[in-house]
């Protein structure tokens, strides 16, 4: 017998890369099926560009394309509204706005949301449970579902951090790629960059997958002036890994304000590790990308030969 009571679409973009396990486990516990949009491709991006205002940032355009892709395939589409995750920090405004933007530009889809605004006393657990009760009218069961989902999410994060550590212990050149998960792991944005680096024979460590609690504490060693939570985590990962890698690549999508501030800050303060910034935009060709990454890797290898270790 099919026990599934509804299907919820998860757009493969933005916070999906952070909370995929949390969401999938939570709905699974409630017998709600989840459907993920396919990995990004040119057509999804084109659809997003058509839907978005020109000045919108590239990841948000990609997000709109993914939401549109799920239309007619699911009963609901989940888009959280994340404003603050701690008392004194904030999330980038696109996470405040993505739900409302999608609701206003994409017709004929039923978007469902949960809010996180810790500074104003609105917490993930209460909000996801409120959402869960739309599907299952049983407070205790929903709360249990959340606890299971959250535990799975934490376990997943720790496993990833462990995998990162294993990469760092390998011999050979290692490069830390710093960027948001929705950029790094996107099939069209970050994946080609990571593939080029791997073709050059270096091990790639990703910033997003770091142990986030530790990373946030470490961020303060580089700067206490970054107000955006997710960027703080990236900054922390730089501090966490920089002595164990041979170089750092900052992956930024145009025209991200928080990322450009963070990147500039790192470039000025981290003089002991070679670093480059790669800015992706919607018109990106792979040719320039390859030249930049190849020469960066050549430089790291030359430094390794000359100095014996991280240049």
């Amino acid at each position, binding site marked *: 017998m099919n026990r599934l009571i509804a299907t919820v679409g998860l757009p493969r973009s933005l916070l999906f890369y952070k909370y995929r396990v949390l969401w999938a486990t939570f709905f699974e516990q409630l017998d709600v099926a989840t459907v993920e949009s396919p990995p990004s491709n*040119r057509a999804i991006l084109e659809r997003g560009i058509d839907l978005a205002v020109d000045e919108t940032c590239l990841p948000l355009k990609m997000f709109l394309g993914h939401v549109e892709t799920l239309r007619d395939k699911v009963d609901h589409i989940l888009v959280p509204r994340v404003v603050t995750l701690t008392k004194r920090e904030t999330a980038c405004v696109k996470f405040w706005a993505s739900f409302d933007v999608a609701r206003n530009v994409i017709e004929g889809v039923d978007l469902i949301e949960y809010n996180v605004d810790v500074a104003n006393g609105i917490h993930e657990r209460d909000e996801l449970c409120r959402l869960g009760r739309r599907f299952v009218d049983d407070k205790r069961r929903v709360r249990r579902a959340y606890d299971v989902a959250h535990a799975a999410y934490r376990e997943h994060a720790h496993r990833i951090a462990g995998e990162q550590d294993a990469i760092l212990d390998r011999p050979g050149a290692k490069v830390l790629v710093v960027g948001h998960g929705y950029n790094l792991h996107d099939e069209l944005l970050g994946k080609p960059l990571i593939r080029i680096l791997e073709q050059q024979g270096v091990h790639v460590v990703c910033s997003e997958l770091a142990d986030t609690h530790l990373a946030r504490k470490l961020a303060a060693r580089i700067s206490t002036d970054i107000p955006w939570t997710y960027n703080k985590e990236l900054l922390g990962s730089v501090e966490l890994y920089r002595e164990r890698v041979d170089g750092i690549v900052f992956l930024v999508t145009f025209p991200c304000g928080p990322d450009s501030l963070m990147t500039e800050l790192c470039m000025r303060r981290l003089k002991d590790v070679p670093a480059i910034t790669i*800015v992706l935009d919607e018109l990106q060709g792979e040719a320039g990308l390859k*030249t930049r990454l*190849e*020469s960066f890797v*050549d*430089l790291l290898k*030359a430094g390794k030969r000359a100095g014996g270790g991280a240049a």
Partner: protein
Amino acid sequence: MKAYLGVDVGSISTKAVVADGDGQVLARSYLWTEGNPLRAVKRVLSELAEQVDAAHPDARVVAVGATGSARELIGAVLGAQVVKNEITAHAVGTLSRHADVRTIFEIGGQDSKIIIVRDGVPVDYAMNTLCAAGTGSFLSSQARRLDVPVEEFGDYALRSKKPTKIAGRCTVFAESDLVHKAQIGHPVEDIIAGLCNAIVGNYLNNVGKGKEILAPIVFQGGVSKNVGVVKSFEDATGEEVYVDDDGHLMGALGVALVARDEGVESLFDFAVRDVKFETVGEECGGCPNDCEVVLVLRDGEFIDGWGNRCARGMERVRTHLASSVESAVP
């Protein structure tokens, strides 16, 4: 005598050298790419073959390197042992001539870069992004506007006593600023000197931003032939800026030396210039990415291809090609 061929096919010009084992240039060629890298390479090969035959008939080319934006295509056509990005190639080439260099400025037709070298090892570099301001194309578009041949820019600039201030941040704004300055009576040599200062200011503020620029400085790329820009660089850095007569060949020389050091040798035959090469471009259509796949054919036979994001793309296009061969290059 063993010799090494290096070919640097850029967006604007194609450069090639034959060098001996010590990095001495035995033959050199430099001409416009004219949007057709295959033809340009055949022409440089003809020139090199003539020079080698005349002056060094005992030279045998045993390794080939390709660099520049058409490096993959040309590498495939020449069967190159090494296909290297132009930044590494330039650094290696320059270091072979100026072992003590610590900063390399390079301004080409469409891009500009800076390479920082310490103790003979490149340690940092930067390239222009998303914008052609501060490159050779900026100067040539302003030259057209002023109706002064770009080759004469340097001499004009040196005659100027009071360079005009030109807003050089953006080619479009620079042009309107330049027109305005001309309309209110600034002499043309002052405007040209101002343009040279603008390109240097732009370069140092963008590409050179945050980099520690230490002497000795070597300046290369097409724009280094402009004495006005060289002088502006010297004024701005307070250091002497060296321009090598062979500065434009450093990428080609560098990649020839990388090929030498690769240690894989096979005899290269200049007769390859008489072989018919074609490229075929096609959109794969296998998935929504619609990759533009390029295939290189030697006498109709597939030798290499790229542009596909996955292995399926190459197979699809090759299979399709087998059923309908059509050439994209005259």
